[in-house]
């Protein structure tokens, strides 16, 4: 069993860095290592499709042996939360179908985040799965999500909402239960944001940090000497194109190494590089499998 496996993995990062891909790969890897895994995403349903299964509304979708996925929806999560509080389906229905009530609930700071996070952490608590992977929204919104319990504990007097916040916060800050996985790219903006994110999630919110997953990493392939020889006086069209491709490859490779080193020296966290992939057709199951194997090898 992977020594890095926790009960909750929160996958977080800037928009467009590959959080969903990494969440799917992590889910595949942990389920293959024998854990019962649930992968959760917010409002969308991309993970079943990425892994070649069909999404079905807000029900839990079975993807593979020991691997399931769920899409968190604010309305559905609110309904479940209200049912838990009011113990009456009839009352819940009449309340949540009331326009005034829905308008009112829409005004409460961070309530959608709270009920969705509640649903997620409930899945962690039940023990039905060994590991829950949360494909969190992009940086700012992701942090809002994770900060909701703490914000409520600061702002709300003891009562219904406060006790919800208490048990949720307990799981989130428990370093034996939770790991925040930082996904990033070998690019300036993404790396800067990751360093800020690590600071805000770690010191700021007191969440245990897991790994850095450096996605779309390009390996070193050509020496300076080789690039120089290819640079001058190439008559062949194909070789000229190859020379150009090689130069661009190497710029990316060196930037990959530069940012890898920067992340390693700035954060004392395990770092996994996930290679840039070149699918012949669309990005899909085969690519996720390759990333899952890479994560397994690094675990």
């Amino acid at each position, binding site marked *: 069993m992977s020594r890095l496996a926790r009960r909750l993995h929160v996958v977080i990062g*800037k928009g467009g860095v590959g959080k969903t891909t990494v969440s799917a790969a992590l889910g595949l890897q942990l389920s293959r290592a024998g854990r019962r895994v649930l992968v959760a995403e917010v409002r969308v349903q991309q993970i079943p499709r990425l892994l070649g299964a069909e999404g079905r509304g807000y029900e839990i979708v079975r993807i593979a042996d020991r691997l399931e996925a769920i899409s968190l929806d604010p309305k559905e999560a609110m309904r479940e939360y209200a049912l838990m509080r009011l113990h009456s389906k009839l009352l819940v229905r009449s309340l949540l179908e009331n326009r005034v009530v829905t308008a009112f609930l829409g*005004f409460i*700071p961070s309530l959608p985040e709270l009920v969705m996070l509640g649903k997620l952490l409930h899945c962690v608590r039940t023990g039905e799965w060994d590991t829950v992977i949360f494909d969190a929204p*992009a940086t700012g919104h992701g942090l809002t999500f994770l900060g909701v319990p703490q914000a409520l504990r600061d702002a709300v007097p003891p009562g219904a909402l406060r006790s919800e916040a208490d048990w949720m916060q307990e799981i989130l800050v428990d370093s034996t239960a939770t790991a925040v996985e930082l996904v990033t790219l070998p690019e300036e903006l993404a790396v800067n944001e990751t360093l800020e994110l690590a600071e805000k999630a770690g010191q700021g919110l007191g969440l245990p940090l897991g790994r850095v997953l450096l996605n779309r990493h390009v390996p070193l392939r050509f020496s300076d000497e080789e690039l120089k020889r290819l640079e001058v006086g190439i008559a062949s069209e194909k070789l000229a194109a190859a*020379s150009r491709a090689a130069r661009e490859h190497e710029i990316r490779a060196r*930037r990959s190494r530069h940012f890898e080193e920067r992340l390693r020296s700035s954060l004392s966290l395990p770092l996994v590089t996930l290679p840039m992939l070149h699918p012949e057709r669309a990005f899909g199951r085969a690519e996720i499998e390759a990333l899952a194997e890479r994560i397994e090898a690094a675990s």
Partner: protein
Amino acid sequence: MSALSSRLFEREVIVCVGAGGVGKTTVAATVALQAALSGKRAIVLTIDPARRLANALGLAELGNQATRVELPDAPGELWAMMLDLKRSWDEFITRTVSTEHRDAILRNRFYQTLSSSLAGSQEYIATEKLYELHSSGRWEVLVLDTPPTQNALDFLDAPRRILDFLGNKPLRRLLAPALVAGRFGLRLFQMGGKAILEGLSRLTGIETLEELARFLVEIQPTYDAFKERAAKVRELLASDRAAFLLVTTAHGTPVEEAISFHRMLVEAKTNVAAVIANRVHVDHLGELSLPSPEELADELLREGVPDSGQPALSERLARTLREMRALASLDARNLERLAASVHPTPQVRVPRFPADVYDLAALRMVADHLFSRS
């Protein structure tokens, strides 16, 4: 493949929209730069630029301050401003609310939602700021880099959502008796709608209800001013003085998002000038067939370059070309689908550069691809 024409700058307001992480800021900055190079007084309003780009544009840490970017060879002017959305809200409230209510509003938790986390609030205040700067008449072309949106509707719906928030009539009616009495707490439950209020208080607590009631009283004077203003902002964005640029990359998910964004923008009767596909992988082989390692080995021999190393140079070159072609053809397929879905909106492609775009020289390079020279 088409390019933007400088006729774009006949529009006074250009709004760049798109998912997070696709390079909206770069595109917005490039468009403003090109406007300045074509003789316009232009300003780019950005939300959260990369630090080096911010430095290149001379943006200070302080938000909401217009800064002139030195461009010795431009007949026009380039200005930049980093929007501080929270501050813009605070300024808006300060402008529209009387002093006696102001501080209470700024402290209210419901105002915190309104100014930071209510869906659409950031989008709204960004366009409100845009409107304010447009009205000032200081600039001929204003380019707005919008906050990353999960859903284009958040952007277009923003004024309606905010108005709902500020002027929710049913809720106001329900809470009105308590408001008039100036007393909250248990009094709420002596009124009509008792069951609803009781249910609500079991979900969120009575204090939250009271705070909302207070907020609705205090925000009342803002409502009409806001409504009037929101209508004007909307009018400007839907008029032919404004154009939208939809920015995406060629990756599968952003392309899907761009297609649905485009549909919503068109339905909202906004003027989408172009879809900009950013960071597109280019196949340097063009129409040439993919060479085998053997073919490349022969050519290396002919050119007198030693085919050394482990694996051999010819093999590594062949692999690099294969990878490049795979990325480029995947992008090309996604962009064909995009072009077909957004027809007849033109698609403009900007290649992916090996290094990030962070200075004015790099922005000029992007501009060369974005704009035709005619």
